[in-house]
């Protein structure tokens, strides 16, 4: 059953770079194309590729379902919490001006944190949906 050797070795070579690309898309989203949503989908794609090639049980060891299901609401809370912090700093909800004395820096920080929330929710939702589909055996 080891006929897919090339697939396994090739995937192992590619997988870290997919994750790296997801992080690049996430943190370079201010300057280049992309952002939290795209980065989340790419990161989830890495886990799904791993699951397709090495089996769902191996994938659950690198992305345990309990953590994944915890991350689904966590991203929304990060987003929502950013807005509440900006309220406490005396600005409007989700107005990031108070995060840093410099206007541009403040908004870059705000965007980064908010996109992190998007990344967390999107990636975990995609992985959780894939797990939910893949766990159901053929009836």
């Amino acid at each position, binding site marked *: *059953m*080891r006929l897919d050797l090339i697939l396994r070795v090739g995937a192992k070579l590619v997988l870290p770079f997919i994750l790296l690309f997801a992080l690049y*898309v996430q943190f370079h*989203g*201010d*300057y*280049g*194309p*992309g*952002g*939290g*949503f*795209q980065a989340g*989908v790419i990161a*989830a*794609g890495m886990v*799904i590729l791993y699951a*397709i090639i*090495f*089996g*769902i*049980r*191996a994938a*659950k060891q690198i992305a345990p379902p309990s953590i994944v*299901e915890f991350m*689904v609401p966590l*991203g*929304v809370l990060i*987003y*929502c919490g950013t*807005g509440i912090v900006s309220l406490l700093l005396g600005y409007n*909800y*989700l107005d*990031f001006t108070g995060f840093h004395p410099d*206007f*541009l820096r403040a*908004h*870059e920080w*705000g*965007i980064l944190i*908010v*996109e992190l*929330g*998007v990344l967390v*929710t*999107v990636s*975990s*939702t*995609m992985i*959780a*949906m*894939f797990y*939910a*589909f*893949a*766990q*159901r*055996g*053929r*009836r």
Partner: protein
Amino acid sequence: MTPLATPLAPAAGHVAAAVEKVEPNVEAFIMMVVLTLLAAITIAIVKQRNMFGVVILSGIYSFLMASLMMVLDAVDVAMTEASVGAGISTVLLLATLHLTGSMEYPQHRSIAIPLFVSLAVGAILVWGTIGLPEFGIADAPMHQHVAPTYIEYSKNHQMPPNMVTAVLADFRSFDTFGEVTVVFTAGIGVLLLLQGGWRATSNNRRDDDDDEDVEDAVHGNKEGSSKTAGGRNA
């Protein structure tokens, strides 16, 4: 290239001038090719009876749509379309086919009513485009409202250089918050639909574990199959 430069550089200059002259049309040509391929793939999807083929064709359709978005300079949309449309949804549809089987049952119903509905909806949509402003012009009403402010902020280095990110995450942060909530709600809904059933009954759970063991045996994952039912519940 200026008209003066062409006589000075005889052979290479002519080629370069020809290329530059053609260049504005290259974009339109690529779009025509991609749109033709999209139409061909749509027809192929309609004709195809094997669901596996349909899923792969729709993945190709999404990838062509991503190329089209690239030609239209909408790089963020292209990235989303390539990753979600061609990537995740193809995988999820394949996972669904694993559950349902991949052959479509032949249907002998009349196609008259569906054909009429599709043509009517298509006609209404085409009729709707007549009222739109000309494609790509700068002084369309939607470019006059708030867009100039966004562009000014990015140009004056008050916002990150990628205007799309600035608009999505900052100017329209509420909208994006809504979108995240939509993703969250949809994910929770799918998880409830797919997982709620078999967690409630113990019979189904045993079936699922058996299937997973078979899958692990196929994948040669000895470590996984040695832990049987206890592994997943932990």
